[in-house]
């Protein structure tokens, strides 16, 4: 064999060796399609659980959703299931179906897998949230190690003002993706109200639910994201003026009846979760008309928490 051929062969093999470090599977899509078209419910549920453990979140979402699809007769096609998160209307319909579903063991297991996979895929899972929250808390002077948990209250508020921009930026990034938040809220609500061990699901449901409300309130153009909103950008650049800015910024609920209904739905969910978690909080009575007519973000906060 000539030197050039040796070189080509050597380079090809080295390329294959380097490629082999990539977490990529050539048959995964074929295997997933086979399971979605001809697998039994048990096979799909087990495969979804396996895919979640193997960090193949797309497959876990498709397989878990296919079990829910079958049990709740949603009529979703294989093609839609394979790219579930790409269709906001499908995600919304799935969330609606889950929140009103009759509980069975299969559906409960599938929802558990689905929400965990969706949270991991969209980087809204516990570890990612903690990854954002812990540095902020540390910047605020809160030491999270169990033996030395402390904070100095006067320093805290001074630090809070300093880092308000960072905090808002983190919250905005976390609470992008309205329909994903709706799905996560509905899923964890279903788990929290039907599973025996419901503390963690109730905490997560509350978190995503608050995120969903935050999204509805700030997202003026209804594109599902809040990081592109002027109010959010202004607060990040000028955190000290958050109150003034919220007096002027238009509420995402203003003149939007559908968003107002969703906001009230989320508010009711939060009440239920606080009951499960035995957190005492004062909840005001909300109605669509009030939210619909309040023009500014600060008006909504005043309605929720009082002037």
């Amino acid at each position, binding site marked *: 064999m000539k030197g050039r051929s040796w070189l080509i062969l050597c380079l090809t093999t080295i390329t294959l060796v380097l490629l082999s470090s990539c977490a990529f599977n050539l048959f995964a899509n074929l295997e997933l399609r086979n399971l979605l078209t001809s697998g039994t419910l048990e096979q799909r549920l087990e495969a979804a659980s396996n895919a979640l453990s193997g960090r193949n979140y797309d497959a876990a979402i498709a397989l878990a959703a296919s079990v829910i699809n079958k049990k709740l007769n949603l009529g979703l096609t294989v093609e839609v299931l394979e790219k579930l998160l790409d269709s906001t209307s499908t995600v919304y319909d799935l969330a609606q179906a889950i929140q009103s579903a009759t509980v069975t063991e299969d559906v409960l297991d599938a929802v558990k897998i689905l929400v965990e996979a969706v949270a991991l895929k969209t980087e809204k899972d516990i570890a990612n949230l903690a990854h954002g929250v812990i540095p902020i808390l540390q910047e605020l002077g809160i030491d*999270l190690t169990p033996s030395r948990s402390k904070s100095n209250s006067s320093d805290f508020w001074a630090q809070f003002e300093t880092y308000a921009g960072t905090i808002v930026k983190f919250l905005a990034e976390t609470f992008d993706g309205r329909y994903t938040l709706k799905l996560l809220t509905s899923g964890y609500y279903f788990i929290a109200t039907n599973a025996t*061990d419901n503390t963690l699901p109730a905490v997560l449901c509350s978190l995503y639910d608050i995120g969903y409300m935050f999204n509805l309130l700030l997202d003026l153009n209804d594109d599902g994201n809040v990081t592109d909103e002027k109010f959010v950008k202004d607060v990040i650049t000028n955190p000290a003026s958050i109150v003034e800015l919220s007096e002027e910024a238009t509420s995402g609920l203003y003149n939007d009846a559908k968003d107002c209904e969703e906001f009230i739905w989320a508010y009711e969910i939060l009440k239920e979760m606080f009951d499960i978690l035995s957190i005492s909080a004062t909840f005001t009575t909300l109605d669509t008309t009030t939210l619909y007519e309040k023009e500014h973000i600060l008006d909504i906060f005043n309605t929720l928490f009082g002037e």
Partner: protein
Amino acid sequence: MRRTLSFLLTLLVLLAFSYQWEAWPGFFKPMKNSAMGGTYVTTAEGIESLLLNPALFEAGGAVGSNLNLSENVATIAPKLFELLKDPNKITQLATDTEFLSAVRGVHSYGLDLYGGYGTNLVWASVGGLGAFQTELFWKLSLTNLNQVELGAWASYFGMLGGSVKLTKDLKIGLSVGFGMAGTLIPATGTSYPATVDVTNQSSLTAVLPDVSQLFRYIDTPFFVFNVGALYRWNDLSLGVAFHYNSKDILRNGPTQVLSAGVSYDLKILKLAFEMEDILNAQKSFYRKMNLGLESNFGFLKLYAGLHAGWLTGGLKLDVPFFNVAFSTYVVEFSPNAGLMGERKYTLSFSTRF
């Protein structure tokens, strides 16, 4: 006929388990075979072929070790070393999100030590092999800390076998062995791996062994049997291999693996294709498929392959009397290709004589 059908049915039922383990007491693949997409029926070599396909066994000796590391080793190893130096840092690990993300999912670490020698005896090649294996496994979800799966096992065994040329083109081989195996986690019980609640200390301590008496847990005898055949026609090789373990502690029963393969030797490049674990009805077609490629540059050998759809690769520095090798491959724990793979790295040292 009915008896045969009944045997096959029993075999399929016995093969119905949750995890598709790729190494167990009495069976592991050397670095080369892992790097070549897991192919072994026509590509095993040296004394190690007694473990995989004894028809490939040829006289010679070897001593070697494989250190099998999970992909998360670069993240967790420095943190665990810090923890060893200062045990009080365990509280920091509980809030270390990078560490938590790295340990999430399915992971395993393992060590194989082996040595053996073989010689030509009249018309046959005969030899023996001794090996020690151990592996640690866990599956963890941060939202289900009360259902963490945890397991560790160890085994040692000895094996005798050989190969014989029946015709100019056909070789057959046979190896038999006996050893002891045991689960270290759970220290008691028969189900592997154990499901524990890591938030409940008593649940965790209940499955842990007494570290001062680890070898006491390696108490289950097992018998292994390998038989294989290889037909060579010019540069084309066709092979079949069957492995049997009488008492596999990971499955709490016997294990059988039947594999068949074909390879073509282009001198500088060897291509191999095989179907592994053909009788396992749980595994899909794609899951059973292995492809391998080997190119030999003298002192440097390069390997690549496809195991259940996952790309694999490796290289071996082959200097006289001593080999150092590195491979990257994926263990697929699921019966389907691409669903529950764990990227692993193996560092291998061996000497041949």
